[in-house]
């Protein structure tokens, strides 16, 4: 029996690093401290571990098929890698998408492949916090590490996010309930404000719940800013379904905080006005700093969706949705993001890695993917497998392979290897595809 302490949970953007994992015969039998999501990932879905192995479908061998309606044939890694390389090398507009459930070391290999292919490379932020990046281009990012918030925050705002469901340990470790140096009272010393379009489980725990009419967040943020800047007079009696009195009360709470933090989720990034909601919320944070200290942090979803954005930014200058088709990195979401090019039917071949595009893209995009040569690299059988031609199973990052991941606040941590892998790693597969692409191109 092997006990690994201080292990990282490779599920959500909280990247909790206090998991104790018990391993027996290369099987994980226990994951102490992990939440439901983390346990499911570490125990249930681990290829060799857990009790649910029969019901959980991982991919055992590389598989290919010519006709997407026929059955897969199990093949060797060499065959699958060769076929993947041929598909990608032939493509005039290849898309390499995914990367959320993989380490930064994998991202580096992916970016090299994208450069080599002249591909578009995009990650799952595209359908998650991509707009947060766009807002950062406009207004910046006044943020802090989560410990800073835990130690100091006396006012915490959750806007369009629902940590109770999506980041179960967030409130305990970093926000609402966390105790720290200046916040030894924990929850009792804090005011929690939740703004959302429905009374989520998170909203039910708030001191103040502000119900916004769906799609009106932008108007509400502007109203808060107007009140904060001393222009309450121009704000109508009700904005976005919220009474002005409540907005005034919220502003009072915000500006009298000693340290305030805004956490936001897809309620802002995906609603009407998209990234302009974040843009405006960043400005609200900026404005609040004239009164007190305030920071704003996105509730990033997957454990290393942030990492891809970091690596892509330092390697290319751009955070995701980078188009290498002319050799130079070009970036313009709306034009170069995965769903832009899929929706326009421009892509002629794709590789989906460490994400499930078919489950998380709109039908129109999935329809396109279903009709083009599609390579999937993933440990798990997913919706994407159903429409892929070439499927290459890999070792599970953060469980079978170590590597780097970035928490939602940009703190990088090293993922542990908990058990021995039975499959090639994503890094190895990408390296071999890149090598094969070079050979096919006579380089």
């Amino acid at each position: 029996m092997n006990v690994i302490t201080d292990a990282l949970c490779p599920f959500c953007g909280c990247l909790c690093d206090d998991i104790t994992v018990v391993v027996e015969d290369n099987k994980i039998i226990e994951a102490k401290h992990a939440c439901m999501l983390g346990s499911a990932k570490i125990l249930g879905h681990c290829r060799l571990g857990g009790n649910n192995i029969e019901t959980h479908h991982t991919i055992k061998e590389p598989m290919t098929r010519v006709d997407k309606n026929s059955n897969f044939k199990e093949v060797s890694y060499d065959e699958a890698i060769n076929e993947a390389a041929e598909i990608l090398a032939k493509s005039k507009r290849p898309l390499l998408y995914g990367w959320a459930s993989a380490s930064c070391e994998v991202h580096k290999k992916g970016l090299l492949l994208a450069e080599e292919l002249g591909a578009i490379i995009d990650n799952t932020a595209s359908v998650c916090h991509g707009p947060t990046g766009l807002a950062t281009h406009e207004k910046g990012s006044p943020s802090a590490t989560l410990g800073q918030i835990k130690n100091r925050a006396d006012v915490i705002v959750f806007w369009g996010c629902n940590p109770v469901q999506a980041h179960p340990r967030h409130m305990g470790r970093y926000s609402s309930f966390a105790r720290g140096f200046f916040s030894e009272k924990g929850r009792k010393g804090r005011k929690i404000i939740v703004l959302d379009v429905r009374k989520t489980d998170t909203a039910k725990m708030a001191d103040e719940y502000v119900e916004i009419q769906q799609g009106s967040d932008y108007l509400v943020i502007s109203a808060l800013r107007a009140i904060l800047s001393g222009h309450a007079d121009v704000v109508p009696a009700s904005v976005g379904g919220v009474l002005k009195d409540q907005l005034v009360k919220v502003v009072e709470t915000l500006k009298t905080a000693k340290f305030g933090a805004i956490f936001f989720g897809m309620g802002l990034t995906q609603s009407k006005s998209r990234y302009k909601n974040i843009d405006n919320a960043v400005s609200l944070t900026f404005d609040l700093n004239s009164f007190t200290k305030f920071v704003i942090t996105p509730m990033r979803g997957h454990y290393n969706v942030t990492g891809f954005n970091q690596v892509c930014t330092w390697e290319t200058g751009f955070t995701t949705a980078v188009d290498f088709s002319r050799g130079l990195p070009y970036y313009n979401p709306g034009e170069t993001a995965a769903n832009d090019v899929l929706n326009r039917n421009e892509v002629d071949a794709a590789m989906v890695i460490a994400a499930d595009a078919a489950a998380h893209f709109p039908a129109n995009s999935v329809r396109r993917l279903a009709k083009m040569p599609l390579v999937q690299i993933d440990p798990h059988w997913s919706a994407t497998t159903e429409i892929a031609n070439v499927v290459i199973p890999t070792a599970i990052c953060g469980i079978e392979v170590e590597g780097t991941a970035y928490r939602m606040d940009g703190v990088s941590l090293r993922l542990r290897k908990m058990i021995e892998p039975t499959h090639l790693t994503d890094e190895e597969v990408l390296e071999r595809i890149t090598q094969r692409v070079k050979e096919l191109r006579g380089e």
Partner: protein
Amino acid sequence: MELLIKNGAVYDPVNGIAGDRADISIKDGKIVEKVSSGASVIDAGGRLVMAGGVDAHSHIAGAKVNLGRLMRPEDSRIGLKSRTKITRVYSGYTVPNVFAMGYRYAQMGYTTVFEAAQAIMKARHTHEELEEIPIIDKGALTLFGSNWPTMDYVREKNLDKLAAYVAWGLLASRGFGVKVVNPGGGEMWGFGKNVTSLDDVVPNFDVTPAQIIVSLMKANEMLRLPHSVHLHCNNLGKPGNYKTTLASMELAKQIKPAKDRQVLHVTHLTFNAWGGTNWGDFESKADEIANYLNNSDNVTTDMGQLIFGSATTMTADGPVQYANAKLLHAKWGNGDVELEDASGVVPIFYAKQISIHAIMWAIGLELALLTKDPYKVLLTTDHPNGGPFVNYPEVIALLMSNKKRQEEIKTLHEAVHKRTKIPGIERELDFNDIAIMTRAGPAKVLGLLDTKGHLGVGADADVAIYDIKPDQIDPSVEYAKIKSAFQSAAYTIKGGEVVVKDGQITATPMGRTFWVDATVPEEQTEIMMKDIRMKFKNYYSINLANYMVQDAYVTHPKVVKAGAIPVKVS
């Protein structure tokens, strides 16, 4: 592998060579006495030969650099270059991508660059980027000035614990030296406030900036670290701050250096040699600072020269960055790090007709020209705060040619005449001065003079050859030639390998990362670690076991040993 560089006009101030024809012999990455007849030969043909450039203060990697990139796609869309068989893509001007960072330094003949600030908790990120910067050797200075353990030990006057913490912090961050930014201010920014003088008391910690600086200098010398404390002064960015800067320098007098170097390096003076009381009467006080330096031997500085055009300011000085963003109506990045420090990123455009910018432009030059000893003022732009490092050749040309300065002054806001001394300064630096400010000086300041910054036997075989024949050029007049030659080295040799020829990258070896392993008595570390463990248990948001930078992030380490107890030679 052997290489012989023949016929160079060599400037090697450390070894007293100033333009003499000399041959440089290289074997296995080092400069040697001589090589065999089988060595490959580069005929410098009378051209300028210097050691590879060393930059002791630049922001090239880590969380705030990457935030700068993320905030500025408009910057990343310039300077683009496709990949070649040898090189990856280039992007960016003020915040280049990792590849361009290494290539462009190498193309200017630089071979060693130090990142000027990393928080321990974010050091892993710094090293991830450093690992991807090609060619150059590098290292990173670690922030200590607002760290809770630092302030606790300063308050307790427990230098043993402080030294143990610094040593451990350098190990944890794989850092090279002690960086102090707006000491105490980082903590106060945690609640949106700042310190305003060296003697303000930081609430809850009951220490002053002056105490922090002095204690860290003491710890630094106890540990016999190669580099001194590297200080970004309090009140940076505020008119009248030269007084704080001078007072900070004065603190260094209390300390004896443990090594042959300064005890305090005060960085990017362009931002803190400011007179006046507000933006209206803002003026240069670089002359006062230079005067101080001319009469003191324990402090060094660097210019942080301003370059007109686009820049991206980035610093651990969180409060100054919020003030900047407000003043400029600019986008604002802020990055507080729990228990450690703050940071901020704000884009700026320096314009010739803005009086403040014109005066700031003058400050860096005045400092360099009025300070007699070039070892005391390193050439930097505090990349990318004063401007991108690719402008070093512009700075060199300005320092070497009064004519160029006078022509530039004609294009600037008239304030440059009234509120700076630069129009009347006639001094022109020579190649020897430049070699000191860009090679020998930074190497000495960093404590790396054994292998860096010179061409003597035993030094790293880092060499730059520039397409200038020193005996046939008048830099005062032909400054344009000087600038273009320094922009694009005829050869850059890194560790004995030709990495640049005629300004083009020819090879991309992986450089090394310097970090300092300072020993302290084990029991001292153990006592200190009790406090650290308590802080992780209660206050950090990660576990201690996941805090330290793992070996996987420093694949080509160059460990420099230091320590409070004698180091055993194995």
